[in-house]
């Protein structure tokens, strides 16, 4: 009897985690293309390739983590315990996803800043050279 309740828990947890991962990475990487173009100085094909590779890595990391924390263990066999366990699992997973999202955003901003830093000397020097 306990077996079936845990199986119900897995059947709820896995689609929710997969859907969350899919949704978050779709939103993130639809908007990240602009940053990539900026980082790679307008080379569109390199920007697209890097964006796609980042997206794959994001999927792998998050789905791997979701599967890693999947195991549910409840002691008494009741729906209340099942829902509590599911709540802590899904909540923990979405907090993790949020942290990952902000980390990725930080990387994008850092890359943009670095690209700008390496560009500014060239722009500064050029007018002085011309005059």
């Amino acid at each position, binding site marked *: 009897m306990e077996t079936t309740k845990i199986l119900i828990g897995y059947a709820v947890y896995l689609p929710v985690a997969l859907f969350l991962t899919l949704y978050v990475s779709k939103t993130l990487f639809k908007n990240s293309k602009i940053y990539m173009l900026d980082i790679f100085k307008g080379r569109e094909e390199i920007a697209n390739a*890097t964006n796609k590779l980042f997206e794959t890595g994001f999927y792998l990391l998050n789905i791997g983590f979701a599967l890693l924390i999947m195991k549910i263990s409840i002691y008494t066999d009741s729906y209340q315990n099942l829902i509590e366990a599911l709540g802590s699992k899904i909540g923990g997973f979405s907090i993790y996803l949020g942290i990952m999202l902000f980390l990725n955003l930080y990387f994008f901003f850092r890359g943009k800043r670095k690209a700008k830093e390496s560009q500014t000397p060239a722009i500064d020097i050029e007018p002085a050279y011309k005059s």
Partner: protein
Amino acid sequence: MNYNLLGYGIFIAIIVFIIVVVGKICYRNGNIFVAELIPGHLDLCQQINKSLLVSYYLVNIGYCAMTLVGWDRINSPLQLIEVMALKVATIVCILSVLHFLNIYLLTSTIHKLIK
């Protein structure tokens, strides 16, 4: 019914699928980075990329086959799902760490190349 044998079959199927899909994506998007290495020799760079893909398959699938040793005895379908999730998750996490390392190396190299 021996659940261990069933588990090995499903595990290898899932892992080979994931590795092949990820390898195809990396191959398609990695062509452009490899092409920057030797400018003007596109076909040579594609051959390099192809051999990189094959070695990636060999290393990863070989490692997954090696991890088949040392599974616990599986007694119920519930345990099968749990063990499977844990094993697949470990492999996927290792793969993602390697993948991010690769992206880091590629982007730092490409910044030097296109400067």
